[in-house]
């Protein structure tokens, strides 16, 4: 704000006195206005009360005069007028007939009713027109009085005689019906004027009292307000802000002007400080926002790393658990394998022990046959016994071959013989389990170069798996064939088949779908290793619900020099796994 403009309202001298005069003048004007307004509204209220009173009196008279005018009874009319005349404000009352002929006139005091048609002013035409309308009251005002006029009416008779029976009150609805006459009342304005005077006197008195009180209060207020200002000036003078003597340049204007300038400078300084402070706050806010953003990014990154660590730990735990389970399973399978190995050695030993008595038994039977003297039936039985001994011998030989540690020596093998020997070994067991065996061995099958006991183990494994796949019986088909430099052995069962999800795992070590203890999970794995080492391959085709077919393919060796017969690399190193 401009300092000079502020100073324009400050008096140069006698600040307290001028303030006091200003406030007193304001109070005086307010008092006059308020008193005038109060007098005006109270006068209006008094006038309205006077008019209401006149209307009430004239309505009351119209009601009271109804029976008197109806019966044209002068005494009744006179007695109806008396109560109104007891009112001090009522100057006179007058009763007219429907043609505005004066019937009664009363004035001033009760008992002074008299006929005085010359003293009663006739109502003006406007008033007559108004009172002709049902329920309306006319009034006109003169210098010293207000005159009210109203018609006195009577309800017309019921149009039908029947209507008399159904009368429903109340009586005396004087606002409608035929006109019986008119009544006029003049109310004096003396009471109104006296009321006006009283109101003016009271209002002026109250205004003067209010003015005096206001002046006193203003005086003390100005004194109270100027005291700290004076102290401020003295303090300024003491501090050297304002050193001019009061008499030379005024009491208040110049120091106030200096003070305002000093304040302006202070405000400018404050504004500068404020702006600088705001800028710094803004910069710090930006820095804090960025730091906060960085911190949030770090928190998010750390959370992500923690999440990845947690996931890695979970995966590691899962893998450890799986490995632990696999190791446990392998341990169990190895234990079972050791047991089977010991059993095989036991079987080989037993077979060996059985071979000697069997040789003796066969010699006895041959001597009996050779000696002769037997009946044809006995001869047939002896031959049958010798054949059974041969079969037992082959069985024992097969068992010994099977459980004998591999020789690792390759030889030219007739796969048909090899297959027959293994099937012979298993036929009895298969028949007991309700499995029909069908063999279809291709004639003229070329020989393959292989380790016999290892291939027997492969075929035995395949037949054993086929047997286990048909617990309720079925058909086992074993077939050999030669095709394009390969010799193939097909072992096919009619069991439940292998599910697709298991097919890719069946050649893995220790994988087994059998119950624990029933299989090692190594048979197919070892068989595949054996076949691979022979340069061949083993394939499986299975359909769930129909059966499984394993095909072992072995290469037919090309005609070669004799020196190469036993030189098949890797075949005879004796490192073939045995199951």
């Amino acid at each position, binding site marked *: 704000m401009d300092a000079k403009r502020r100073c324009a309202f400050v008096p140069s001298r006698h600040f307290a006195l001028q303030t006091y005069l200003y406030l007193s003048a304001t109070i005086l004007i307010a008092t006059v206005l308020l008193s005038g307004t109060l007098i005006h509204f109270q006068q209006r209220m008094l006038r309205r009360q006077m008019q209401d009173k006149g209307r009430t009196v004239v309505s009351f008279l119209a009601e009271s005069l*109804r*029976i008197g005018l*109806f*019966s*044209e*009874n002068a005494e*009744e009319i006179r007695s109806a007028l008396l109560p109104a005349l007891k009112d001090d404000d009522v100057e006179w009352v007058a009763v007219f007939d429907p043609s505005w002929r004066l019937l009664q006139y009363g004035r001033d005091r009760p008992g002074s009713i008299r006929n005085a048609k010359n003293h009663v002013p006739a109502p003006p035409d406007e008033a007559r027109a108004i009172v002709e309308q049902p329920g309306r009251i006319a009034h006109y005002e003169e210098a010293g009085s207000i005159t009210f006029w109203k018609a006195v009416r*009577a*309800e*017309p*008779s*019921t149009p*039908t*005689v*029947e*209507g*008399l*029976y*159904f*009368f*429903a*009150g*109340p*009586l*005396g*609805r004087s606002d409608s019906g035929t006109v019986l006459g008119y009544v006029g009342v003049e109310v004096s304005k003396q009471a109104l004027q006296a009321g006006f005077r009283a109101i003016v006197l009271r209002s002026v008195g109250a205004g003067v009292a209010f003015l005096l009180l206001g002046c006193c209060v203003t005086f003390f207020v100005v004194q109270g307000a100027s005291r700290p200002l004076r102290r401020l000036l003295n303090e300024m003078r003491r501090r050297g802000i304002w050193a001019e003597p009061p008499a030379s340049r005024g009491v208040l204007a110049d120091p106030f002007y200096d003070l305002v300038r000093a304040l302006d400078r202070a405000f400018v300084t404050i504004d500068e400080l404020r702006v600088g402070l705001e800028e710094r706050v803004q910069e710090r806010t930006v820095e804090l926002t960025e730091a906060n953003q960085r911190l949030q990014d770090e928190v998010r990154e750390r959370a992500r790393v923690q999440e990845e660590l947690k996931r890695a730990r979970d995966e590691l735990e899962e893998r450890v658990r799986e490995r632990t389970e696999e190791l446990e399973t392998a341990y169990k399978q190895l234990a079972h394998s050791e047991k089977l190995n010991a059993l095989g050695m036991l079987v080989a030993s037993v077979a060996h022990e059985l071979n000697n008595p069997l040789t003796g038994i066969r010699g006895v039977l041959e001597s009996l046959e050779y000696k002769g003297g037997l009946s044809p039936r006995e001869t047939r039985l002896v031959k049958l016994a010798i054949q059974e001994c041969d079969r037992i011998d082959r069985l024992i030989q097969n068992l010994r071959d099977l459980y004998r540690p591999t020789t690792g020596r390759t030889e030219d093998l007739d796969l048909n013989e090899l297959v027959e020997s293994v099937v012979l070994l298993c036929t009895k067991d298969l028949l007991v389990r309700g499995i029909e065996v069908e063999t279809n061995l291709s004639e003229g099958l070329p020989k393959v170069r292989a380790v016999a006991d290892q291939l027997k183990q492969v075929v035995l494994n395949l037949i054993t798996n086929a047997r286990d796949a048909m617990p309720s019986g079925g058909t086992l088909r074993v077939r050999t064939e030669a095709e394009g430099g390969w010799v193939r052995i097909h072992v096919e069962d009619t069991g439940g088949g292998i599910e697709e999800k298991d097919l890719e795992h069946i050649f893995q070590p220790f994988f087994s779908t059998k119950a624990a203890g029933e299989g090692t999970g190594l048979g197919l794995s070892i068989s595949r290793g054996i076949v691979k080492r022979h340069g061949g391959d083993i394939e499986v085709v299975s359909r769930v619900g129909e059966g499984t077919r394993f095909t072992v393919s072995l290469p037919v060796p090309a005609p070669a020099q004799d020196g190469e017969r036993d030189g098949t690399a890797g075949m005879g190193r004796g490192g073939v796994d045995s199951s």
Partner: protein
Amino acid sequence: MRGLLIGVLLIGIAAGAAAEEVLILHDPALPPARQVVDAFKDALETAFSRRGPRRLVPVTFREVACGRDTPVGARGSGPDLILAVGTRALEVAGGGPDPEIPVVYALVHRPPAWTRDQAHVTGVGMEVPAEKWIRMIRQALPEVDRLGVFFDPANTARFVEDAKRAANRQGMELTAVEVRFPKEVPARLEELPPDIQGLWMIPDPTVITRETVESFLLYSLRHRVPVVTFSEGYLSLGATVAVTLDFPSIGRQAASLAWRILNGEPREALPPEAPNGVILRVNPRVARKLGVRLGTSPPGQGR
């Protein structure tokens, strides 16, 4: 089944065709007209149903409201009987194209002159017989022996004469005051002899206006005499006793006349009747303030 339904339908059509039609003309300006019409319809339907099951729809009603502006003859033609409720309805009923249709009226204080020589017009009036009036006044006000009554000779001279004779027979004295204009009433009231013990307001249109009623009631208050009137509405204003009409009873009485006409009784044997149903009502508060002793009244009829 289908044959049975068709038979019932044919019987219904035949019965409907044979039903009696009653045209009801009523003046809606009369408050009790609805009571009279309802009672009339109930009574007539009941009477037909008692006659036996010969008609499935014995009587049908058609109502027409007649105001002051309804032209005479607006009733149309064709009904078997007309019930006219109110004088205006009776005027409308008498102006139709079929003058021989029997007309029964109700809520008609005094039938118009043209009905006197019309044998097909009969009904129930509103004028209670003077004998019954006096008897009921004696019953309600046993200590009142002298009654003042105002009447216009042009309206109620015959009734007042009958009332005088009935009063004499029942030990009362009736002071009859003639007035020819309503405004005479207040002045003539002051001329009544001082030994009058009660005022009797009779349904005379010259005597009864709002101002005269006020005069009667003021006189009753000033002189402490009871006012006997003919309508319950005046009781609440300060009358002491009212002998009023039982409007449902008037409806039933008109239904009885209609029933006899529809059953073929000769019309000459069915002259207009006075109302049978009359109710005595009293205002005990006013009686107590006036110091008047009330006689015994039927239970439930006091106010």
